[in-house]
């Protein structure tokens, strides 16, 4: 072994494999239990400005409209017809324009969890936040597609 292996580069089994049989199984986690799946999806979607811009135009709004204006535009007729008076948030990011190129459609956050009787830290709370603009856009459904040509035949 001392002579043959280094001189002829004959194959040696990896000594870390200590299984008795001649094979072992590799298990992978489901993708939705990996953080990489969520962070990749969130980063890939980004701000979705390509879709939000024409939607604003469809709603009869300018490109520099803020979230407060959008919410008032959508909920206004409803609140008026039902005689509801509630204040839409109007501070901070609610006043900034929607197409600022910064605000992602999804964002994850964290907060230490103080629970129990002693109010000591006992866990970590994580949140998946969805931008209200994306909430409005993602819940719409497109009209059904036309049947394909072959099916019509």
């Amino acid at each position, binding site marked *: 072994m001392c002579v043959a292996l280094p001189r002829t580069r004959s194959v040696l089994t990896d000594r870390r494999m200590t299984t008795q049989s001649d094979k*072992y199984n590799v298990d992978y986690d489901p993708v939705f239990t990996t*953080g990489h799946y969520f962070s990749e999806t969130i980063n890939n979607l980004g701000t979705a400005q390509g879709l939000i811009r024409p939607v604003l135009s469809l709603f009869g709004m300018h490109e520099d409209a803020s979230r407060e204006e959008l919410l008032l535009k959508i909920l206004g007729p409803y609140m008026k017809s039902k005689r509801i008076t509630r204040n839409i948030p109007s501070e*901070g990011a609610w006043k900034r324009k929607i197409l600022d190129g910064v605000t992602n459609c999804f964002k994850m*956050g964290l907060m230490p969890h103080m629970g129990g009787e002693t109010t000591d830290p006992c866990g*970590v709370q994580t*949140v998946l936040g969805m931008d209200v603009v994306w909430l409005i856009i993602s819940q719409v459904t497109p009209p059904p597609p036309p049947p394909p*040509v072959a099916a*019509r*035949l």
Partner: protein
Amino acid sequence: MVPSSVLCGSNGRTRMVPVVQSGVARGPDPPAGAAGAARVPKRKMARDGAAVADDKSPMKCVTPELVAANLLFFSFRHCCRKIFPVVHRNLTLSFREPGYVFRSDMRSLCKSWSTLTKDLRRVYMKDSDTASRTWFGVFVSSTAFPLWVKSVNAMAHHRSVSFAQPSNGRMVVPIYQCIENMFSTMYFTPMPFHVQIEALYVMMAQKSLDLNTMILSCFQLHVMGLKTNCDINVLALACNGESLTSEQTLRYDSFCEFLLDKIVPADVTEKGALLHDGFFKPLKLEQVLACCEFGDTTMHGDIEKIHAHRNQSVLKNSQSVYVDLGVDGGVVTYDVPESIRACMDIKKAAAGSNKLVVDPYVCGSPETLIAQLFASQMTEEAETLRVFNQGTGRDKCMKQHQQLASWWSVAATSGTRLPGKSPKITVLVFDVCRLAAHALCAY
């Protein structure tokens, strides 16, 4: 020399048919009758049995009766697959673009598609150059063009059938005219708009749009408890002050009620779904790891400081634009996953004492670490522990739409074929070369 054999399909089963040995002239067939009957029957060889393999599914059998019953369809398929490819290749017909007319063409359609789906495309098509190459390469040549051929064929056949004339008691269809029409259309006419739209739909649904965006959005909306959606045209009509039908009004009212309750609840004491800014304040990697060490009482002071700093937004009532999932008690991690525990151990170890490296997909940045913490809660075990810790009896009245693990395991994996539990991948371990008998024999 053993005569060679060829494979021949017959009724879905593969059988071996012996052919004449090369270089030997085949004699005339023996005459039928007495001489033919006297021929020695072929001996059944063992390999004949082995040659009949059941490893193929039965092929579709096209019989004359089937063709006679569906003449139009088979003529259409024949034109698409036999006549058209030969003529098209020999004439080297190119893709005809509309010229001197004001209409949508492939370039303008590509620009609209590229702009609209800017952030919604799959990762490999996110780059605009790659998207453009995919459009003019894969999309135009293998998606739009075949659809156009099928469309032209279908229209030509329909037209020819409408010109069928009775002759000698039979209906005669001008097939020659049909094929002539088909080729003149292909040669002189650019692709019609409805085919472009149909091809675009196929492209967007199957190739370009990122399915994970849809999955994540549906997950959020489902857990939030959205029951009825409102179409975008209805929202646009309402925003622009147009009148709505009764069904549209129902949808619009239902969605507005849902949205208003999430943002500004009717009851002032009730907590809305809007998250405060403190959740999204930037953190360092070490701070996130410190938050995960809630089991260590010596770290409680640091964690409380972080909590107090992030919780200031609640006191200021500074609301973000992000809406929470709304799970009762929150998505709280009570048991730190193994991957993060390994990161903590590696970070704690003295420099050079541990040769293991940190997994960049878990501990590469604070964002990946938070994402890993969140994702670890999407399993049945984590959900059971969370529900148990958040109060006895809650599991009995847990809302169905707030069961995160079941959504992923049922809706996502079976509905979209998102990879769930992977099949076991077996890796063979080979013996040491010098111990193998084969190596000795070879020597």
